[in-house]
């Protein structure tokens, strides 16, 4: 079974993001970029499936600019066998990305596609679900445990009121939650080996995919700053403020 893991290049989770002064987006100049942590969990899970003998090949796929090759190399160092970049300089949005991935899936015919549940920059949590809808594959979202047997995957999902176990027939789409696994660190020999692993570059035109943006971002704003606290002089003043300003007691 082949496993495809789509990965996204995002601002590293340790970086304090800054909004551009003209509010058109997040300032990405000279900012450290990484593999989206949820996608990294997806890579780790796919590599573990390979190590367990369930999967034969792990393919990392990214949709975006040339710079995404850096993140794909990271995935190769973590244990993916080969990588595919669908290169586009245009603004890639969930629907466009899902369409490009569908075209890749049609070529590769993978038995499982493991997405991260969401990216830490867009926070949409849409691409996996859209991909499942476009391909008609069953989806098991927010997985925290995957067991594969007899052409089916049993997936433990994290839902509002607790946990839900569902069984989906393969090929299936899985999106990873935080507790699925803890990704490994890439070892130096593996980083060196990753440089020799194949990385194919495709374009949306080659795949025959329309990636035109469907959503327009009007404005990006930083969260409102929290006002400074004050010291109250007396208990009466505190009670007065709780009653009239904070309205927490009636």
């Amino acid at each position, binding site marked *: 079974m082949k496993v495809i893991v789509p990965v996204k290049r995002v601002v590293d989770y340790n970086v304090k993001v800054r909004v551009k002064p003209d509010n058109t987006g997040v300032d990405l100049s000279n900012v450290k970029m990484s593999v989206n942590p949820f996608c990294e969990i997806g890579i780790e899970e796919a590599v573990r499936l390979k190590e367990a003998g369930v999967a034969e090949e792990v393919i990392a796929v990214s949709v975006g600019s040339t710079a995404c090759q850096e993140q794909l190399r990271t995935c190769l160092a973590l244990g993916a066998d080969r990588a595919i970049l669908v290169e586009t300089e245009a603004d890639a949005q969930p629907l466009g990305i899902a369409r490009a991935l569908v075209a890749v899936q049609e070529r590769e015919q993978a038995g499982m596609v493991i997405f991260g549940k969401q990216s830490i920059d867009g926070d949409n949590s849409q691409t996996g*679900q859209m991909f*499942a809808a476009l391909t008609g594959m*069953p*989806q098991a*979202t927010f997985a925290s445990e995957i067991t594969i047997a007899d052409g089916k995957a049993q997936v433990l999902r994290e839902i509002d*009121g607790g946990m839900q176990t*569902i069984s989906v027939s393969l090929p299936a789409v899985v999106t990873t939650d935080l507790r699925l696994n803890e990704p490994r660190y890439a070892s130096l020999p593996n980083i060196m080996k990753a440089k020799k692993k194949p990385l194919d570059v495709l374009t949306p035109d080659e795949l025959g995919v329309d990636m035109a943006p469907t959503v327009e971002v009007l404005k990006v704003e930083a969260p409102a700053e929290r006002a400074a606290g004050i010291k109250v002089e007396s208990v009466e003043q505190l009670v007065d403020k709780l009653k009239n300003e904070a309205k927490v007691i009636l």
Partner: protein
Amino acid sequence: MSILVIAEHDNNDNKSATLVTIAAAQAIGGDIDVLVAGSGVDGVASQVAAVPGVNKVLVADNAAYEHQLAEN
């Protein structure tokens, strides 16, 4: 423009998220229909019907919808 709201419920009770969504739909304006899909959802349907501003409640009551999976 008419708006379809999909009710969030646990087959017994309507969840507050549905009310939030209906309020948002009201802010946009237009006819608001609510779809209640589940199993044994008569109670939920009548709760939703009682919400002011709802034009029509559509009920899909079948055992297949009990767990409300994305596929169905």
